[in-house]
């Protein structure tokens, strides 16, 4: 095993990490921004509004991310009217296609996560808001969504990590992300172990950073769910008696 090929090519990995982080973060932001109104409409809208959202979610959750990406990147180029239209300069770029696919994919999953946690808003809290004279919109803004976001956090943190790992597929359509970097090193030196273990370590480092950040957010956001006197510290308290 020879890890000097990694250290001497670390710039390829750093470039790959930059691309992974950009792809994933932009997709997540777009996906979330789209998912919030869609989830709201999915919950409160009439069936004319709900059905297209359901179909969208059903398609993106029902098919593999790789197939979706191929459909966008290879599939759309097959149609003349797309190749001749003003959007073609965008759709011929692998980067744009990956970004679009990832955004829509994570959006679909996030709609379902948010819908589930909105529906789970305690009925009494909704009733208290109604009785206080809140309009539907105010109630969404002040009660249902803030409460739902907090409940959605554990599920959404999973979605963030799935998206990070799913983004490895971007390497299939020529993008040099972390996995793309590993493929370059592998083909250059034919050393798959060193190449991909390095990629794995990069993904792990990002994942653990994300998990740490989410845990901080949970501490802040889930204070209202944690009964006092039940923290880990308190459970360990008897030790003090023994030593003291």
């Amino acid at each position, binding site marked *: 095993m020879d890890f000097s090929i990694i250290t001497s090519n670390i710039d390829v990995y750093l470039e790959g990490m930059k691309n992974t982080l950009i792809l994933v973060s932009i997709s997540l932001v777009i996906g979330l921004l789209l998912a919030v109104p869609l989830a709201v409409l999915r919950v409160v809208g009439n069936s004319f509004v709900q059905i297209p959202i359901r179909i969208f979610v059903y398609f993106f959750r029902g098919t593999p991310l790789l197939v979706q990406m191929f459909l966008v990147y290879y599939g759309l180029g097959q149609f003349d009217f797309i190749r001749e239209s003003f959007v073609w300069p965008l759709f011929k770029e692998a980067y744009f296609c990956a970004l679009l696919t990832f955004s829509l994919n994570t959006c679909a999953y996030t709609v379902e996560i948010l819908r589930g946690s909105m529906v789970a808003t305690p009925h*009494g*809290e909704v*009733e208290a*808001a*109604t*009785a*206080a004279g809140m309009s539907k919109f105010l109630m969404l803004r*002040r009660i249902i969504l803030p*409460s739902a976001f907090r409940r959605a956090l554990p599920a959404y943190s999973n979605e963030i990590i799935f998206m990070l790992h799913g983004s490895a597929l971007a390497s299939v359509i020529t993008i040099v992300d972390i996995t793309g970097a590993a493929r370059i090193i592998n083909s250059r030196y034919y050393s798959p172990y060193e190449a991909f273990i390095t990629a794995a370590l990069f993904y792990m480092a990002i994942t653990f950073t994300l998990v740490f950040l989410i845990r901080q957010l949970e501490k802040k956001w889930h204070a209202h769910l944690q*009964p006092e006197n039940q923290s880990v510290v308190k459970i360990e308290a008897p030790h003090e008696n023994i030593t003291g």
Partner: protein
Amino acid sequence: MNPGQHAISVEQLHKSFGENEVLKGIDLTANRGEVISVLGSSGSGKSTLLRCMNLLEIPDSGIVRVTGEEVLMKKNRRGENLPADIKQVERIRSRIAMVFQQFNLWAHMTILENVMEAPVYVLKQKRAEVRDRAIFYLNKVGIADKLDAYPIHLSGGQQQRAAIARALCIEPEVMLFDEPTSALDPELVGEVLQVMRDLAAEGRTMIVVTHEMGFAREVSSRTIFIEQGLIIENGTPQQVFDSPKTERFEMFIAAMM
């Protein structure tokens, strides 16, 4: 009687859930400063009556008036009764406070935020003023030390007192209490009832659905008894408790004592 004195009134209120007719024509007027205890066995319609007053339940027919203003209703295509103007309903609700059996505090907000929410966001009052008032009312119900706690960190009695402070902070025309002590441990009932006694003594208009006979008898200015969707006793606590007009109410008291 001067209609300006009316805090809230209902006329010929009817409400059914499916086949089950819960309210069969209720007439009730609460004047300013009255404390009305609503008694009745479970399923008698007493909670439904209360919930119709702030349109949490939409009555099938009948009139609800709040400080003389009639809630406008219309019929939809299926002939069901609906509020004609949801903005009017929201405005009327914002002047009526409700205290629920299960407290229904907003779990993701601190106690202070819970109390400030409606005045700031519904009544659009200035945050600094509302804050002072919220602290005043939290003091009044005796939990000013819990401002920054979340509801889950409070006992049931403290949560209900916070919910009463939340109700007070909108400076309501009428306060509706829907079995406010029924979900509490017996030893916590007293602290909530004490707060309610204080409010009654201040001359606030209160309509209290309750099983607390002591409260109905000693604190309320009027006691009504609902049986199968109709008011069958209506008078001062002395009249109603000491010389009930119906045998049904005598049986009810006997069973409660």
